[in-house]
């Protein structure tokens, strides 16, 4: 059965996977040591900007007025 090409493919893939597994662990350790996991909550603000700030509703049916913003003062003004 050793000539079965499927076996060869599976074994090669298994080896590659194991090598990559090891490098993944190393990469995770490296990322953690560089502080990549810090200050998570700030990133949730990255989709807002001066143009479309927090508190700005950005979608409505065509031809209908959008809700006046800022809707909730604390949302819009805390920064």
């Amino acid at each position, binding site marked *: *059965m050793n000539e079965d090409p499927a076996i060869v493919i599976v074994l090669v893939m298994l080896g590659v996977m194991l090598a990559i*597994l090891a490098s993944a662990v190393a990469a995770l350790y490296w990322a953690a040591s560089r502080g*990549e996991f810090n200050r998570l909550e700030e990133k949730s603000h990255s989709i807002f900007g001066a143009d479309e700030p927090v508190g700005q509703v950005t979608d409505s049916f065509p031809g209908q007025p959008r809700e006046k913003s800022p809707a909730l003062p604390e949302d819009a003004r805390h920064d």
Partner: protein
Amino acid sequence: MMNRLPTLFMGMLLTFSSAWIGLVVVPWAFFGTLEPVQNPSEMAMPGEMVPPPVTGNIEAGLEVYAANGCVYCHTQQVRPERQGSDIKRGWGTRRTVPRDYIREKRVFLGTMRTGPDLTNVGVRLQDPAWHHQHLYAPRSIYPNSTMPNYAFLYDVREIQGQGSPEAIQDLPPENAPPPGYEIVPTQEARDLVAYLLSLKRNYPLPEVPPDF
């Protein structure tokens, strides 16, 4: 969390590959190279291997089965006695196991039972003429059946001489051919029926206790 592309990719690969190894590679290594065995039945001839080979017409019929999507309504797996009513309905005498499928180049376990299970259809229904009539006009046999008709696997042709021995007989008037014509199976239909008749997974296997 992750702020670098390599890290992201490594994490994804890690999780994905662990599942791949667990669900594909390991099962494959454990039982991916099963061999046919001598039929353990006392009545079996020496050298009679089970499961039987899938060759010739039967193999061609397997392709017809695939091309026409039989698998969307018919399963080919029997669950153990304690699960469902598979065995009580007479769809098999024992559960099916991996070795049952090793001869087929494509396996049609199926996920839907709009129609009955076909694991042992060749045991239950052994008459090729029945299968041809049923494929040609399912409702001529079961009026409430919702099976599609596979009339396109048959030719309607003028009767030559005594007529073909394979021609479908006894069709009700709404399905019968015009006078002087007969309905004969194409090669595809013959292959498909050969495949269906070959579905007999009722032989004993060493790994399955009877009634399991």
